[in-house]
């Protein structure tokens, strides 16, 4: 993580040079993603040919596992890091393209349900994480970062808040490491729980989107369940991401008052600056699809392009997780994060199951 951050902080260099520097890492993302896809296909073919009954392990999990294996054994060489850091670009491009599979009416209906759940989840998780931080005597700014990271959108929210509340690098690294480790755990716990409870794709997708912190892991947790669940997880997570500006603004105002600094000047400009603009791209593509600008074959092509973009994202999820680096951050933030995550997962599960009884999802 530290090296990724360092890459992004580097002095501005020419765009073509920056692009060339990304190529080795993008190549590695592609190889890992394709290897995951090939493994899924080979295992499915082998088990079918030998009449074996083995649960299908999706390419998503293979890509993440191969990435994890590389990152935690041979390690990732510096030359690959700029390209691996593009996983978030592929994630957002994939989300915008996925808009073609949503009719705007669906977005508004499910978005309204998601928004209600997200608002309740935000209040409960921020309150609970703040309480946990106090009990475990974490620094107040680290507590704020963990609360924001677990309630909205993981790493992006932490980085946005770090600048706004002037938290130090150590607190930010702690919070990011905790959120990433817990996001990785969610990949292995959410799908089995969903299957165990017999959740429908839509209900599970809503849970993954509201319960898993980081956007990439939320999409992956959805995709591990089913394609349809991934679609709903993206929508719920996008709704959650759209809230980032309001929460960061709230924390910025709180810490400015507490530190005796000048409060945020133009609040509307602040909100616009923090608003994730890819949400607008997603809505625009969804609007175009709703107006039948694309025919069925074109919608399929856009959906498949979105899958290819997600394939690179999932490879990046595995490649950036380094357990040794995470261990260095200490155990207390993880305990707070883990306790918080378990409670938030339970709260969001209750909310989603409750909503599915009240509204036809």
């Amino acid at each position, binding site marked *: 993580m530290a090296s990724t951050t360092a890459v992004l902080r580097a002095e*501005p260099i020419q765009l073509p040079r920056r692009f060339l520097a990304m190529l080795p890492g993008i190549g590695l993302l592609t190889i890992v993603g394709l290897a995951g896809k090939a493994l899924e296909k080979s295992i499915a073919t082998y088990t079918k040919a030998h009449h074996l009954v083995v649960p299908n392990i999706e390419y998503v999990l293979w890509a993440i596992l191969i990435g994890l294996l590389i990152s935690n054994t041979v390690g990732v060489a510096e030359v690959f890091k700029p390209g691996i850091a593009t996983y*978030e670009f592929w994630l*957002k*491009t994939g989300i915008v393209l996925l808009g073609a599979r949503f009719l705007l009416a669906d977005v508004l209906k499910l978005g309204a349900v998601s928004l209600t759940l997200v608002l309740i989840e935000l209040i409960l998780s921020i309150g609970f994480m703040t309480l946990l931080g106090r009990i475990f005597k974490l620094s107040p700014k680290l507590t704020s970062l963990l609360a924001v990271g677990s309630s909205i959108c993981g*790493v992006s929210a932490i*980085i946005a808040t770090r600048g706004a509340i002037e938290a130090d690098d150590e607190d930010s690294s702690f919070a990011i490491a905790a959120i990433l480790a817990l996001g990785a755990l969610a990949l292995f716990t959410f799908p089995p729980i969903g299957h165990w409870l017999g959740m429908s794709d839509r209900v599970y997708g809503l849970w993954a989107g509201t319960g898993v912190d980081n956007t990439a892991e939320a999409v992956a947790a959805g995709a591990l369940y089913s394609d349809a669940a991934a679609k709903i997880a993206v929508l719920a997570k996008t709704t959650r991401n759209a809230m980032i500006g309001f929460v960061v603004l709230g924390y910025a105002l709180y810490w400015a008052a507490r530190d005796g600094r000048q409060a945020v000047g133009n609040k509307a400009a602040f909100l616009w600056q923090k608003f994730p603009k890819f949400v607008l791209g997603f809505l625009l593509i969804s609007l175009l699809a709703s107006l039948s600008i694309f025919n069925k074959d*074109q919608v399929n092509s856009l959906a*498949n392009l979105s899958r*290819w973009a997600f394939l690179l994202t999932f490879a990046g999820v595995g490649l950036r997780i380094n357990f040794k680096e995470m261990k260095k951050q200490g155990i207390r933030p993880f305990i707070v994060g883990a306790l918080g995550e378990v409670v938030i997962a339970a709260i969001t599960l209750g909310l989603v199951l409750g909503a599915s009884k009240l509204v036809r999802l």
Partner: protein
Amino acid sequence: MANQVTQEKSQRGLSLDGWAVAIALLLAALVKLGALKHVGW
């Protein structure tokens, strides 16, 4: 991370989100115009 890149926007033009939207729209236009057909998976 996204917002860290966003903060560099003024130095480099488009933000990460801006690039993602621009590339996605470009791909959508290519699909619409028939330059990209039957993308498989």
